[in-house]
């Protein structure tokens, strides 16, 4: 456990550190480009020149060690679920997960007859933001990042009071 962490309630000194931390974390979100299926192509199109994620400080990183959030873009199958869990564990805290596309949200079009498909990535790892669509449009993915920003801004390094 960190020295200061989890000891004091939220007060003037810590909240100011919170603001700096949350601002820096949310404005430079480096996602782990975890392209599985069709949503990966839309993720690439979002990162490419027209929708350009770089203007939000979002820069795709291939390794979990250097990434803050994981975009699960595509169908999570049983064979892939263990690897996905291991990759999530190997990411440094604080880490977030965006479930992109209805396959990652709930199994998508394969929910009924897909014997090999995990019906939703939240059965494997905790998810922060769900993005509906099959595949979701790039604007929807950018909106997901904005929702994630709002979520991060409410965080604090102080002990959870509630």
């Amino acid at each position, binding site marked *: *456990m*960190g020295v*200061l962490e989890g000891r004091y309630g939220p007060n003037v000194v810590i909240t100011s550190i919170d603001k700096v931390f949350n601002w820096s974390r949310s404005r430079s979100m480096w996602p782990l480009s975890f392209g599985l299926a069709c949503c990966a192509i839309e993720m690439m199109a979002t990162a490419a020149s027209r929708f350009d994620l770089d203007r939000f400080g979002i820069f795709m990183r291939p*390794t*979990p060690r250097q990434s803050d959030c994981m975009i699960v873009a595509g169908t999570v199958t049983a064979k892939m679920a263990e*690897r*996905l869990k291991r990759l999530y*564990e*190997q990411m440094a*805290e604080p880490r977030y997960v965006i479930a992109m596309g209805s396959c990652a949200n709930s199994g998508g079009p394969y929910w009924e007859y897909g014997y090999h498909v995990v019906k939703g990535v939240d059965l494997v790892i905790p998810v922060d933001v769900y993005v509906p669509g099959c595949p979701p449009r790039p604007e929807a993915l950018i909106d997901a990042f904005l929702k994630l920003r709002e979520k991060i801004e409410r965080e604090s390094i102080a002990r959870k009071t509630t």
Partner: protein
Amino acid sequence: MSFGPIFIFLLAGACFVALALGASRLLAPHRPNAEKNSTYECGELPVGSPWIRFNTRFYVIALIFLVFDVEVLFLFPWAVVLKEMGLFAWLDMAVFIVILVVGLAYVWGKGDLDWVRPKDSSAGSAAGSR
């Protein structure tokens, strides 16, 4: 030649490092667990161990890189003060560079710069060796 500014410079450097490491040690979440510390190999469990004996050719290439990297290191300060020092510094560095170019020619000729490439063999594999 007062050494005050240099001392301040060193002090600033030291406390910048201390601040950076200290802050993250104090405030960053630190929750190691077995899974997180396992080696990252594209999501898979590594097979066998990476501590193996590599071919000596890579050691030679690393040495060659080191030599020319240090050469460039000497070039930077020299390039800055060349105008004041005039011809003498230019000649001096020219000798240094010539010696290294001779070394480069020798190494190139001996073929140590070639990456480990097998000969151009039968169908379905192997690029032409240069």
